């Protein structure tokens, strides 16, 4: 047994990791059972920033990520859009990453067009799309949107978009919501938008590797942060708690459906983060186990070498 672990082929580790991720996905998919989430203060801060804005506030949503990190960031992007739409905020979508517009499109198609059919494009939400220049884009639109965004992604002139009539720059926004997978992202928004214009308020969601780098900006420049899938899961729990009745599947009479425990039956697209915490738990336990086994082997080998 000892020799097996000492000479363990890494393909066994790959297989174990595959099973640790796949089995919980299948079990959660089949049973619908998930772990409960207790939101942390940072996640509550994100929720409160959006929740406490009066209905009709202007929210800039910058989706700065791509399909590589979609698994980690799409759940929070979905929830940001849902929360803003449910609160009746005006949503201005944009992207600093070339494939960001596709991320925005997915959110608009899956959330706004399906569950908020009364919202009108150009009046309640707009997709401004991508512009090249990374932080250079922020530096320009912080004082004048139209210098770069003369039209939206559909080619509609800025002046012909009703919800843009009273917007000149990012400074006119009541809140910036950023979903970030790296450069350019939350750090650049903090440095080039919130720091020079401290009246701006901003919350963000980011990948796990980015989160430690963003903590120094909390709470002065960054008012809330969702870190990775755990942050998304906690945020989902908060939004479901507040809007579960609206979000739940409906019966023929448009009444929210509940399960045997009286909990609302929430569509899967709104519990992606919560459901992914299952595979994350088992994968983390495997990592801990591997580190322990690796260290046991290391110390046994060291002792044997010492005896020689």
């Amino acid at each position, binding site marked *: 047994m000892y020799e097996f672990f000492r000479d363990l082929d*890494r393909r066994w*580790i*790959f297989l174990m*990791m*595959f099973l640790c991720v796949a089995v919980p996905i299948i079990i959660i998919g089949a049973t619908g059972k998930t*772990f*409960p989430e*207790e939101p*942390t*203060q940072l996640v509550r801060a994100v929720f409160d920033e959006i929740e406490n804005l009066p209905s009709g506030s202007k929210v800039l949503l910058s989706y700065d990520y*791509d*399909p*590589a*990190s*979609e*698994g980690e960031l799409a759940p929070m992007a979905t929830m940001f859009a849902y929360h803003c739409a449910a609160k009746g905020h005006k949503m201005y979508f944009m992207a600093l990453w070339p*494939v960001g*517009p*596709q991320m925005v*499109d997915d959110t608009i*198609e899956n959330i706004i067009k399906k569950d908020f059919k009364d919202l009108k494009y150009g009046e309640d939400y707009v997709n401004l799309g991508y512009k*090249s*220049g*990374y932080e*250079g*884009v922020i*530096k*320009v639109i912080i*004082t*004048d949107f139209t*210098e*770069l965004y003369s039209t939206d*992604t*559909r*080619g*509609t002139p800025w002046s012909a978009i009703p919800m843009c009539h009273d917007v000149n720059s990012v400074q006119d926004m009541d809140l910036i919501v950023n979903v970030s997978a790296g450069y350019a992202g939350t750090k650049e928004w903090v440095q080039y938008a919130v720091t*020079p214009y401290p009246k701006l308020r901003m919350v963000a969601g980011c990948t796990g590797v980015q*989160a*430690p*780098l963003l*903590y*120094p900006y*909390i709470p002065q420049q960054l008012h809330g942060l969702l*870190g*990775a899938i*755990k942050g998304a899961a906690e945020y989902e729990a908060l939004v479901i708690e507040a809007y579960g009745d609206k979000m739940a599947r409906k019966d023929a009479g448009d009444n929210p459906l509940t399960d045997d425990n009286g909990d609302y039956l929430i569509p899967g697209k709104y519990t992606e983060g919560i459901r992914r*915490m299952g595979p*994350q*738990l088992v*994968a*983390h*336990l495997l*990592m*801990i186990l*591997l*580190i322990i*086994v*690796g*260290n046991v082997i*290391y110390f046994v080998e060291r002792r044997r070498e010492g005896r020689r």
Partner: protein
Amino acid sequence: MKRTIPLLITAIGGFVLIIAFFSSYTQSWGEVAAIWFDILAAIAFILGGGNLMKIHLKKISDRKAGWAYSGVTLIAFLTTLIIGLGKIGVNPSEQFPDYAWSGSYREVGGPFWWLYEFAFKPLTATMFAMLAFYVASAAFRAFRAKNIEAILLLGTAFIILLGRTYAGVWVTGWLPEWLEGLKLENLTVTIMKVFNTAGNRAIMIGIALGIVSTSLKVLLGVDRSYLGGGEE
């Protein structure tokens, strides 16, 4: 001359941005410089594409090791470029039905959408997902408690790994209220908010000071390495 003009452009651009940041009277100068930067960034895509073509064509022509991969790269690049730029298979938009190119290149069901949805998206997601396998393998082979620093790192890693899942609640959920701070999920927050923030702030300030000195060298023309080799 070949080096003097780029040096002047760098110096003027840099100083304009610095002055614009500190003085409201010159704010519009900074905005003009930023717009120029954005235009140049867009043009850089063309240069990048050209460079990609040059490098991979040379690799194919020299029959260097792995030249077939260069062929795949070029085919993928050109296919995406032509389909995207030409808006091939895209219907005109409802707003401007008379203009063939008025539709969105991302139109659902179009060839570009197909490439994105069924090639780009799964490929990039797969590359990122594979990290989990490599990290697990690396953790088994390299994460050793060799000294005090490594033990501290290991301990922190265990707390974060458990604290970021429901396992944290399982393991320490029984602790009484007066030991609330020792619960793994709370320890995770403390580590992130106190130790991580303190360390990161120190690093960030150090980096910022380094950037200031390096930038000044570049703006004053002391450091010209970014211009590359070549004659005056």
